């Protein structure tokens, strides 16, 4: 309530004084919310329903996600010290594949979305850094706390890490990537990521149907 009246005031001030850069500034939560809503709109869009529209649906989702995630920062951070050892071409290749892997997993989650509640708990901002706290309430009634770590580029707040129940995604990947690079080579890493990206959809198609049906039944859970 309070929040929204403040925003109205801000909008009015902006209309009067016309300072567009201001509009996006204090609002990491709004930007995360916008992205989430855009994604859910794509999932819900009747024109994009069905398995034959999957490619188009995923393309659109990918566009929305790409606008919000700072893949370069995430990929660098996930590589850690090994970033230095790579050539420009390798860095670009890794960044592309890494974003593809995360998007694939993210989208398979979103595709099985069936009305979970998403609560925006607010954000904290310190200079050009921020954290947006979100709670996803599953249909079974459990709460999953998610925090988006964001950094500001111009007027956009871009995600550089996501933590679920306190587990940082980027840190988790860094530990895996570090293990692989320490014991074998960059080429091995790339092969393994590629096989993950390729293996996904077929494997998940069969089993995704079940949990969704399973959850629907339990909507009136105790």
């Amino acid at each position, binding site marked *: 309530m309070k929040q929204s009246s403040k925003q109205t005031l801000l909008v009015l001030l902006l209309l009067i004084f016309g300072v567009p850069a201001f509009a996006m500034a204090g609002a990491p939560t709004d930007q995360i919310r916008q992205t989430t809503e855009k994604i859910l709109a794509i999932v819900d869009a009747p024109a994009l329903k069905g398995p034959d529209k999957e490619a188009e649906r995923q393309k659109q989702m990918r566009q929305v996600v790409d606008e919000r995630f700072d893949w370069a920062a995430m990929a660098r951070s996930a590589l850690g010290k090994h970033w230095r050892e790579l050539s420009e071409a390798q860095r670009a290749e890794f960044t592309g594949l890494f974003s593809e892997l995360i998007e694939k997993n993210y989208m398979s989650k979103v595709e099985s979305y069936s009305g979970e509640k998403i609560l925006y708990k607010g954000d904290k901002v310190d200079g050009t*850094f921020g954290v947006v706290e979100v709670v996803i309430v599953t249909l079974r009634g459990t709460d999953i706390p998610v925090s988006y770590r964001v950094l500001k580029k111009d007027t956009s707040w871009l995600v550089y890490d996501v933590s679920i129940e306190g587990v940082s995604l980027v840190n988790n990947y860094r530990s895996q990537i570090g293990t692989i690079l320490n014991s074998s080579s960059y080429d091995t890493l790339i092969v393994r990521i590629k096989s993950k990206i390729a293996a996904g959809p077929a494997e998940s198609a069969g089993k995704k149907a079940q949990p969704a049906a399973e959850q629907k039944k339990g909507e009136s859970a105790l």
Partner: protein
Amino acid sequence: MKAAFPLFAIVILVGSGCRSTPPGQVRAAGVSSQPVAIAEQKGGADLPGIGESPDVVLSAQPIAVPDPIEPVNRAFFYFNDKLYFWVLSPVSKGYAKILPQPARRCVKNFFSNIATPVRLVNCTLQAEFEGAWVELERFAINTTVGVAGFGDPARNRWNMEKRDEDLGQTLGRYGLGPSIYFDWPVLGPSNVRDTVGYVGDLFLDPINYLVPNYAYSVGIKAYETVNGTSLRPGEYEDFKEAAIDPYVALRDAYYQYRRNQISNGEGQTARPVGTLTAE
């Protein structure tokens, strides 16, 4: 009892509802106003940076997990993985067909209600007296209004969240580090501290006093696990699918998850904990 078993299959996209802070209070911790005196902090010493990029930032301190018996742990990980796909998953799917989901939730509530002493004692040991009081109230309400603990009206009607404390967390609060990693067969990821905690919690869980012998205890625990797994279908599959090296992913996620549980999710600031810079 909470610590090890369900963690076999949870972590990355968890639905276990393990939380120790009520949702309203999630991380009310203040924004740190310290300057960016970040770079390498303690604990991240194994993480030499990458130099040229000031915008590579760490949202949380990386954890270097000591794993001297990695080959053994990997063997047990493989065993647990097969145990899940060959036994636990099919059994819990069959079970889910027999018992509808609301009933399975009741079973989960029932076990959770009986285990109240574990959480109550550990809240007290951590001087979380408000949490201990909540656990007492929850027990009183759920045992009566909730019909022997099968329902959870304390949460659903009165918004009292369970305080998921265990002895491993208590020891962590007292300053005990996790020490080396174990991936126990059947029980799954743990470490020295949490294993000690797990054993200690067995003595606090009344279910172990209510049954005549050890074999029954194991049977009940197995049933509880099947029941719990049936409420989280596809979770382990999702986790595995996202991981490049599932063994390392689970190990790291377990340590991060426990660190967050021990701190009750507090101490999060908007500012990153560090940057990856050259040493």
